[in-house]
């Protein structure tokens, strides 16, 4: 992926806004931001962001490519949609945040150990195996992502939650052996792989 990153740097030298407009989902809205700050002030997790959305938009326009794409700010978005609802210019801010995170991911620029990214990866791999999410394995992979002893600690800490989920039939202990899935998961994997190739080509082909 870092080849693609080099290619993009080459291509959009000094015009990061153009790059965002062309490759980030809903990126063409970034220039509409009037820097009023309502999004940042309305974000319930605002304190946790190094750069709130309003600042990210300004950084994009100022060409701060490296800082934006390697930032962990857009990964903090929980999709509460407060910003979209209140934005006086109707910018789809939540979607832009996800778009930026997605683009950074494709270019291989996500900060190491970024938890949102880690979860997304685990979720994706879990789902791709059988074409269905295996809740039990998903939970366990999350618990044990930072090593065995941390995993045991996590599991014990969340014991009650796990039991309640089983009681409510939200999770099935039998899923540990195999687990449910779609008929021909390898076909799904092929479809997704093809789609990914097409997407990558689009990105590179624009070169």
């Amino acid at each position: 992926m870092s080849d693609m990153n080099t290619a993009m740097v080459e291509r959009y030298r000094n015009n990061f806004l153009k790059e965002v407009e062309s490759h980030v989902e809903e990126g063409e809205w970034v220039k509409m931001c009037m820097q009023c700050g309502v999004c940042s002030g309305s974000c319930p997790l605002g304190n946790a962001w190094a750069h709130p959305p309003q600042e990210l938009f300004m950084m994009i326009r100022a060409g701060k490519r490296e800082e934006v794409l390697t930032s962990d700010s857009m990964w903090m978005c929980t999709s509460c949609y407060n910003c979209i609802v209140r934005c006086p210019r109707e910018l789809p801010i939540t979607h832009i945040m996800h778009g930026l995170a997605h683009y950074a991911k494709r270019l291989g620029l996500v900060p190491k150990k970024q938890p949102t990214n880690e979860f997304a990866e685990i979720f994706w791999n879990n789902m791709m195996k059988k074409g269905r999410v295996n809740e039990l394995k998903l939970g366990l992979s999350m618990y044990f992502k930072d090593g065995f002893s941390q995993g045991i600690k996590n599991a014990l800490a969340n014991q009650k939650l796990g039991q309640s989920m089983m009681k409510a039939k939200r999770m099935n202990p039998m899923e540990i052996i195999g687990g449910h899935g779609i008929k021909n998961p390898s076909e799904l994997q092929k479809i997704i792989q093809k789609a990914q190739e097409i997407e990558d080509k689009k990105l590179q082909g624009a070169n």
Partner: protein
Amino acid sequence: MSEVVASNETILVVGGGISGMTAALEAAETGKKVVLVEKRPFLGGRVTQLHKYFPKLCHPTCGLEINQRRAKMNPNLTILTMAEVTDLSGEAGNYTAKVKLSPRYVNDNCTACGECGKAVEAEFDNEFDYGMSKRKGAYLPHLMAHPMQYVIDPAIIGTDDAQKAKDACKYDAVDLEQTEQEIDFPCGAVIWATGWRPYDAAKIQPYGYDRFDNVITSVEFERMADAKGPTGGKLIRPSDGKEAKNVAFIQCAGSRDRNHLYHCSRICCMASLKQTTYVADAWGDDADVTIYYIDIRAIDRFEDFYNKVKANENVKFVKSKVANIVQDKDGNPVCRGVDTEGYNRYENPHDLVVLAIGMEPSVSADEFPVKIEINREGFIEQSSDNGGVFAAGSASDALDVNRAVQHATGAALRAIQVVNRVAGTEG
């Protein structure tokens, strides 16, 4: 009583605010016959409810007085108050207007002596003070009302109060038998000058106008600053009467916001800058003012005014649209947000928050009695499809008085051209 003598060379002006008065007077003073139809019991419109005018900081009463004098002296002008146009049919040069006249229950004998007001007991929210004070059921709308006549609230008709008002009048001016009337008359051109109304602040949910007593609107603040207003000119907070020294202004409350009003209301920056001088005048160095803004729109010569306000150390400017307001345990509204100069998170308590509320057209698109071109913002567009109907003043856009009056003069000229064509004095 209400016979209107008119012809298709008559110009009808709808709305008697500063724009409607201007258009009517300009046309009447060129010798045209004009009928001015005003919904409220008095002329002058919203400027009668302002304390001072930017940029000169003079009192609106001054300009109004001149216009009222011009109106009294002009035999070409017929003024109908408490009147509304319910239908307009025909075409340029040949319209028929239907006008509904609501009863005032007071006739021209009235000398505004005030005895009826003293005699009655029931009280109502005073619309002139945006409900911040009470008025009696027999009342003079405001001290400079034109016509200078009392009004009897229809709500007291049939009660003892009505009879008390009648009995108290020495001039036989109270006429409880008046009824609603509908009249129609011809006219050749129409000037539509129905003006604006403040956007409903309660719709801006995060600011809590409907939840917090100490969050008010800019139009209410104008009333508060007026010595004849609900607080006798004292800047105090509604919840507990405490002196309001730490006052915040929030710009673009409703304006430039696709969830509310698409347009920039244009006057609000200047109105808030003006209102900082009310706070400074009241408290001197104890004044502590904050203006929260996206960008200050003080154009042309208004820039000087802005610079003067900026020079006052007691006025702070925070470049940020406040995200929301909460209330602390002392009843202080607390403004929360992130600024654009450093992206600092703030949570600032104030004594009083004033929302610089946007202007929207006072007549909704579906309420016009005639087919007319309305833009996305609800204002009247200039269009040849409008025939002989011309907008004047803030019915056409969010305008300050200066621009509204210029626009109204232009509208008068257009209307004159139409009726001249009718009279055959042109080409």
